[in-house]
């Protein structure tokens, strides 16, 4: 009985509502945070930063955003790429228009701007449901990408539509631009993800979260108990887009540093992968957003390194295998546990709780 919850009684509703009601979870989470904030920054190198950690954090942010919309509010969206582009281009415009604005502020304002766009494109959700909505959200995806490619104002009339980040600092240390040290970009993203991760969790366990889930599970009944569908769905779109916008902002400013909209925010590059993340991680689960992001960021790299460096296949054959195995794993996962990695995790915890007894 490694994972014991007996003997931990709650005497107040507050403690019963806590994010980690169990001591073990609390401790584990604290340790994780200590490692993330105080150990990793000292050992991180640029490969880990650029190829794994920063993308993982950014995708987690986007996944939280999409999970709010899809996992909690039940509105399937394939427009993530477009919304991330809004975040990225807001950041670029803000950076170039207000050279003295703090980068943290820029990122958050970009989030708010994306939220506004999200509300606009969330309007059809009032009438359209299910896959019809999912496909309809592609309209926003294609339109936004087209817009940022077409209107030169967004990329400051550069010849090619490429945008490049300039250097910005926090506490004197650059966090954007090519000179930013690995630990700085990592910590910058980590802080945002942790802060907004908690905010998301809090919203989910409050009134607004329950309204979303009510709409998700049965919108008619929700309306009848007094959940206004318009406001609730739009709030989900807004908050989801806020997170996705921040993710887009970081994706541009911290991760890639330079990008061009048609390729970097392509539906196959962003919208689908982020949707995989929340489904493989677990719809309607915060933990799932992180697990899913980790899975999707890491797996291809794992497979690639495994096949190219260990097995010694040529890059191209490895890639073909990678695609195949990747697809297979997705299918297998969905068959084994349609509720995602988060569910697997809780089953594992359940087993630990009973260990060494089988039932």
């Amino acid at each position, binding site marked *: 009985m490694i994972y014991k919850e007996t003997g931990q009684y709650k005497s107040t509703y507050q403690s019963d509502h806590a994010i980690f009601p169990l001591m073990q979870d609390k401790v584990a989470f604290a340790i994780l945070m200590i490692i993330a904030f105080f150990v990793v920054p000292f050992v991180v190198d640029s490969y880990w930063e650029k190829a794994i950690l920063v993308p993982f954090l950014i995708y987690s942010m986007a996944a939280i955003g999409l999970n709010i919309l*899809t996992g909690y509010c039940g509105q*399937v969206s394939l427009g993530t790429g477009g919304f991330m582009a809004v975040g990225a281009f807001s950041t670029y415009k803000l950076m170039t228009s207000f050279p003295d604005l703090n980068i943290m502020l820029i990122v958050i304002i970009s989030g708010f701007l994306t939220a506004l766009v999200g509300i606009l494109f969330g309007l*059809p959700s009032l*009438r*359209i*449901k*299910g*896959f*019809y909505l999912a*496909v*309809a959200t*592609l*309209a926003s995806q*294609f*339109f936004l990408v*087209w817009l940022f490619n*077409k209107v030169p104002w967004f990329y400051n009339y550069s010849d090619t539509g490429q945008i490049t980040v300039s250097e910005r600092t926090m506490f004197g240390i650059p966090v954007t631009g090519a000179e930013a040290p690995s630990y700085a970009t990592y910590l910058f993203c980590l802080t945002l993800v942790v802060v907004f991760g908690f905010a998301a969790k809090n919203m989910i366990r409050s009134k607004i979260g329950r309204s979303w889930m009510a709409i998700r599970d049965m919108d*008619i009944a929700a309306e009848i108990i007094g959940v206004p569908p318009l406001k609730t769905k739009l709030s989900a779109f807004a908050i989801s887009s806020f997170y996705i916008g921040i993710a887009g902002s970081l994706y541009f400013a911290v991760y890639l540093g330079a990008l061009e909209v048609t390729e970097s925010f392509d*539906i196959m590059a962003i919208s*689908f992968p982020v*949707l*995989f993340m929340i*489904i*493989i991680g677990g*719809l309607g689960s915060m933990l799932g957003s992180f697990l899913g992001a980790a899975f999707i960021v890491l797996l291809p790299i794992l497979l690639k390194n495994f096949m190219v460096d260990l097995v010694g*296949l*040529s890059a*191209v*054959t490895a890639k*073909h*295998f*990678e*695609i*195949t*195995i*990747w*697809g*297979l*794993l*997705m*299918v297998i996962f*969905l*068959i084994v546990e*349609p509720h995602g990695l988060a569910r697997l995790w809780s089953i594992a915890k359940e087993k630990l709780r009973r260990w060494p007894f089988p039932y």
Partner: protein
Amino acid sequence: MSVELLNFIETVLNGLMSGIMYSLVALGFVLIFKASGVFNFAQGVFALFAALTLVGFQTGQVPFSHLINELFGTKFHHWYPEIHSFLAIFLTILTMIVLAWIIERLVLKHLVNQEPIILFMATIGLAFVLEGVGDLMWGSDVKVLDVGIPSGGSVWLENATIGLASEGSEYYGMYIDVLNVWATVIAVFLVTALAIFSQYTKTGRALRAVADDHQAALSVGISLRTIWVFVWAMSGFIAMVAGIMWGTESGVQFSLSLIALKALPVLILGGFTSIPGAIIGGLLIGVGEKLAEIYIGGLLDIGAIENWFAYFMALVFLLFRPQGLFGDKIIERV
């Protein structure tokens, strides 16, 4: 007639033709969605896979030759020079049937009664698998596909219409791609056959029954698995037709799989569950996007709007009919 009018007609005509090309892809989607509630994102990759296989058979490529050569240091690529395209098509159809059977066995069977989004994701996984396997089997080089369908501008139409313009104006006749005409003929044939089949045969009725209620279908003794294999094989066949049409136009290569994205607006406009919807939706989208691209886009000098315009069009239609133009009305009761 004024040249403007003729040009307009030409645009509409070409839009219709493009639409048919989209419909060919959308049809496969509809079939599968109707029978198994699966939104099969792999339909585009199906088309690619079918086209690759067809070319592979036709040119006698050895499947997995790249892989085998890499692993064992051998050097073989082809085992026979070339065979007739009809034989190749026949072999491809067989392959697609086998593929359908495998998919039912390995994927669908295990995902019965899952939520639609899970099934959707599974088909994306499937798309990756097929893409990877297709690459491994046949290589990712571009391949020329020629099964003897003529293509290129129609000289006959051009000559026939050149005189229509009013005297003295500069007009060169109307343009239409012969390949698209063929696509239209084939699509009309396919849809008619499908409609007759599903309305008037026992299997067709069973198909619709399965589409309505899996459990009930099971309870009256319809074997879901047979129906599914049947349906997936059929949409594999349609994918092959789409693959041939698109592949003839652009060569067979990975991009072929992205035509699924062009079929999606067609699908929501026509309704996920309606075969005629797939055709009408395709025609509407085709005409709409071409007119938009040429007239709105041309007027405001903003090119490349057709991609999002198609989706916007579909969206506007959806606002009035949330289940698509021909989709089954959602019978909702409280």
